[in-house]
């Protein structure tokens, strides 16, 4: 562990990725994530890695495809409009079963939207995003420190399942500086990442083996169906093994607030204040958005009087919360569509049953 450092989320992500063995980065400039590729451009050459600014997000994600297929530990980052452009490539990565890490520092939409924080890419991130029946493993950190802590895991999970892993942040997490401890100090030497050839399926040259092919085309229906059942089996395994969440004071809570990422920090403050005022509130924070913690939330909701979903969107995770809670108790919603961040007071008012109809 390093000494605590004051680091911007975007820069901490970049350094943590490098410490997790990432040596290849392909990207395209877009606010509010530019500090991430800029950090990579400075630092990757120092550790024998490659930074390349692509001609577009479309090209960047396809460079990721090539590099991942060649056995490299690779990532890209972008923000909402850029991630939209990458969706075709992400579908191919999932179809060809290639491991990589994608970072989305979400900004408001639709269209060009704005450059400030939002959580309105939840559907795109968790329900596939591009064409075809596939999922990304989606992790949603709530602080710069947690972002750093999740990165090593993100790369390892990508390799374990041979599937893209998305880190879903937002402009607050990207732009904010917080105290953070990295696995290693910046001047500590890094162990060399495993060679591309250690991935036996990668296209590293057909030496003493039959040739490897990276491909997502299965023109015969029988083979395509078999391939799809195979990747679905991976998603079932993720759902069984990779669910991550945090539950704070939900056991005796009358109101369970459900929020993730930046919004969960705000909800946490509101929940603590509610407790001080004698209101029994708890916080349920999904960390893996896919797989979503349906079972754990169902249990928490089973003991509660009501569930309150808070998002910086007009209600996207809300759908998954409703699926989890069913008829066990009412599900209410408070959201703002991005750009403006909900305040703890606004959430507290909803916990207390004030503040009128949920926006």
């Amino acid at each position, binding site marked *: 562990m390093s000494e605590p450092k004051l680091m911007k989320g975007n820069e901490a992500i970049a350094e943590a990725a490098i410490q997790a063995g990432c040596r290849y980065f392909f990207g395209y400039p877009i606010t509010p994530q530019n500090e991430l590729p800029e950090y990579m451009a400075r630092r990757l050459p120092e550790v024998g890695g490659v930074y390349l600014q692509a001609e577009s997000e479309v090209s960047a994600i396809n*460079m990721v495809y*090539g590099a991942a297929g060649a056995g490299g530990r690779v990532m890209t980052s972008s923000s909402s409009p850029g991630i939209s452009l990458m969706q075709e490539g992400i579908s191919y990565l999932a179809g060809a079963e290639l491991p990589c890490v994608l970072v989305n520092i979400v900004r408001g939409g639709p269209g060009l939207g704005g450059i400030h924080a939002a959580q309105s890419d939840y559907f795109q991130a968790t329900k596939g995003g591009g064409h075809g029946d596939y999922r990304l493993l989606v992790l949603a950190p709530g602080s710069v420190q947690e972002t750093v802590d999740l990165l090593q895991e993100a790369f390892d999970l990508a390799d374990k399942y041979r599937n893209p892993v998305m880190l879903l942040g937002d402009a607050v997490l990207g732009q904010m500086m917080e105290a953070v401890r990295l696995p290693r100090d910046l001047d500590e030497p890094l162990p060399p990442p495993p060679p591309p050839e250690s991935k036996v399926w990668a*296209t590293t040259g057909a030496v003493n083996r039959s040739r490897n092919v990276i491909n997502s085309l299965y023109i015969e229906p029988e083979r395509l169906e078999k391939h799809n059942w195979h990747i679905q089996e991976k998603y079932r395994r993720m759902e069984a093994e990779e669910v991550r969440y945090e539950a704070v004071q939900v056991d005796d809570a009358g109101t369970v607030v459900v929020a993730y990422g930046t919004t969960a920090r705000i909800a946490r403050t509101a929940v603590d204040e509610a407790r001080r005022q004698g209101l029994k509130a708890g916080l349920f924070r999904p960390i893996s958005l896919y797989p979503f913690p349906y079972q754990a939330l169902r249990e928490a909701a089973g003991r509660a009087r009501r569930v309150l979903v808070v998002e910086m969107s007009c209600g996207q995770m809300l759908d998954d919360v409703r699926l989890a809670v069913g008829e066990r108790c009412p599900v209410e919603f408070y959201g703002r569509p991005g750009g403006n961040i909900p305040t703890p007071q606004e959430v507290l008012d909803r916990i207390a049953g004030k503040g009128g109809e949920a926006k």
Partner: protein
Amino acid sequence: MTTVVAQRPKSLSDVVMNYCPGCTHGIIHRLVAEAIDALDARERTIGVASVGCSVFAYNYFECDMQQASHGRAPAVATGIKRVLPDRLVFTYQGDGDLASIGAAEIVHAAARGENITVIFVNNANYGMTGGQMAPTTLLGQKTTTTPLGRDPKTDGFPIRMAEMLATLQGPAYIARVSVHSPQAVKQAGDAIKKAFRLQAEGKGFTLIEVLSTCPTNWGLAPNQALKWLVENLIPFYPLGEFKKEEGGA
């Protein structure tokens, strides 16, 4: 005593190809395989197949292969080459893939002087999807989407990709060849070998545009298609070397 005078190149797979009778993709595949064999490089070559008639190229080359999405083969090849700089990396792309949907990718791979070899097969139409207009379709040429012939007023003008890319500083070698005759095949083979050799020497981006026939969609018998290529494609797409080992990494 027997002497082998001809055999399948080691880098070409022993499978039946899906190409139409009379299509020259098969010849071009063989030339690429021979170029890889000439460098004894089958085990350190990674190819990138594109989308179009040659979509199944990943089944036809006996080396490691990746299948790219439509137009993105140069980006995929870039990713591979940056991870494995000492391997040979090539793309095999048609005219719709390279000159239309993938125009940005090919221009920027060339501008970076990316040390890869691009095999660009130009048959002046979209073959796999049934013969629609391509960016390389000649003026007046009839396709399923230019039923009265390509009209520059509505359909624009064909693009000479080799000449256009040769204006960039990045490329080391750009040539246009054809495979309509034994002599042309020999010259095409030499150009493709040269491109792979330059890549092996780290000279930078190389691209060989190969004029090819499409008897099925042109509505011509194979021999007539070869004649049509000579009489129509070559006058607009002249053969030759447009860039010789100047730029590059």
